[in-house]
């Protein structure tokens, strides 16, 4: 296989079109808006009787999930299927990597099977980037979440959902609440909101769940909900990532809910038309009260639906730059 010879920004090809989607970082407002506009074209398809178009017919997309995920993998699979691509789901638990084969050897073998796109989820930050740097030139790589680093497609579907309800980002105040420290979703959301021109991005969390010098990410940090939710248009709750916590960062789940959980009472601290979001899966009664998760201001299930359209947009844009019919 030939090494990659792309432009300085790994994510764009020489014509400035989307090639890989590894991180929100480095993209222009125009490119992110183009992704959102393209997703809007696909969004209506879910209502149609035939939920399928032939754009990626003949292409093979491989879901390489080294970390468990149901929602993300399923929406990627549905997105690829609706674009008429063939989809391979590699079961890592029974794949050769669990028998000692290196990641690159796995990639080489899949390349030899003429795969056109890798959708990668990995517990190690930078894994998708590493694959993009080392795979054959015609292959596109989409990051479906890597370590604490990035989850760019989740961020884009969140931006899409926000735009559906708030129309533009210029006057928007957004609060991201919870486990910012471990959250690749939060990092990507913050980058996307800043690039798209949100007026203010706040993070609300106990100090133990905030990265050091978090303000450098372009946010204002708050440690209590009463101050942080004041005048907010969009409330984004995060999942408590217990699997990534290897030290006692929280006193107890009940105390966490008391201080940083979203109750109906706390929603009223934000603007009356504020929307409530959560990337899922939800820990009810820990991050968010059921009456809020299922309430009129919640757009959580819309986020799931929008995930398909946004992933269709990203996949088709990445494939167009590699030449669909080549």
């Amino acid at each position: 296989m030939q090494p990659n010879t792309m432009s300085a920004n790994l994510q764009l090809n020489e014509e400035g079109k989307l090639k890989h989607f590894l991180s929100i970082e480095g993209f222009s407002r125009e490119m992110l808006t183009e992704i959102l506009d393209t997703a809007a074209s696909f969004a209506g398809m879910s209502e149609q009787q035939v939920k399928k178009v032939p754009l990626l017919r003949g292409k093979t997309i491989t879901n390489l999930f080294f970390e468990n995920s149901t929602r993300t993998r399923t929406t990627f699979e549905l997105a690829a299927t609706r674009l008429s691509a063939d989809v391979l789901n590699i079961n890592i638990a029974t794949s050769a990597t669990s028998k000692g084969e290196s990641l690159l050897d796995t990639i080489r073998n899949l390349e030899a099977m003429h795969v056109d796109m890798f959708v990668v989820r990995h517990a190690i930050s930078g894994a998708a980037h590493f694959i993009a740097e080392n795979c054959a030139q015609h292959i596109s790589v989409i990051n479906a979440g890597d370590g604490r680093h990035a989850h760019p497609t989740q961020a884009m579907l969140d931006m899409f959902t926000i735009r559906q309800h708030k129309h533009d980002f210029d006057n928007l105040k957004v609060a991201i609440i919870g486990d910012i420290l471990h959250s690749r979703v939060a990092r990507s959301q913050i980058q996307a909101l800043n690039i798209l021109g949100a007026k203010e991005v706040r993070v609300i969390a106990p100090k133990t769940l905030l990265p050091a010098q978090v303000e450098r990410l372009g946010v204002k940090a708050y440690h209590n909900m009463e101050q942080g939710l004041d005048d907010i248009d969009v409330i984004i709750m995060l999942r408590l990532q217990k699997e990534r916590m290897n030290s006692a960062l929280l006193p107890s789940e009940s105390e966490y809910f008391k201080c940083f959980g979203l109750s109906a009472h706390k929603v009223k601290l934000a603007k009356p038309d504020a929307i409530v979001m959560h990337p899922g899966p939800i820990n009810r009664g820990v991050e968010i009260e059921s009456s809020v998760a299922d309430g009129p201001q919640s757009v959580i299930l819309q986020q799931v639906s929008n995930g398909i359209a946004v992933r269709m947009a990203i996949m088709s844009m990445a494939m167009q730059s590699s030449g669909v019919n080549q």
Partner: protein
Amino acid sequence: MTITTQDIPALLDTLETELRQAIASRQLHNPLMIGIHSGGVWIAERLHQRLNLAEPLGVLDISFYRDDFSQIGMNPKIKTSQLPSHVEGRDIILVDDVFYTGRTVRAALNEIFDYGRPNQVLLAVLIERDGRQIPLRPDCCGRQVTLQPGQRIKLTGPEPLSIDIKTIEHAA
């Protein structure tokens, strides 16, 4: 040039006459008219009114079905197609503004057949120009024209409808 904006009313008259004849001879029953976005929709709106069709006009954006996707890429401003849910067994009048290579009509037929198997499809275009590349052609047209090498014809609208003919350098 043999065709100008001033000719549009006459072209629509001719197309309407041909369509009425075709509907009668092919015995179209309660036809569903579908315009191809965008110029085809403008023509279809006028024909739909003239023929006083009962079924609402359908709209087709064939962007997701184009065979030149890898060359021209994705248009981020695609309009979602609006067809009735039941196409199976229907008589359809497909309308476009200019028939050229036939690839747009091929894409449109592919999309229509994804909604169901129509009984028959009748193709009506305002202008049929030379340059066919695949074995498809209209059943009814306002006028056939032959352009000079490098010339392109485009309908602009919706109000007023206008015909724009350009000469593109280095074009085949």
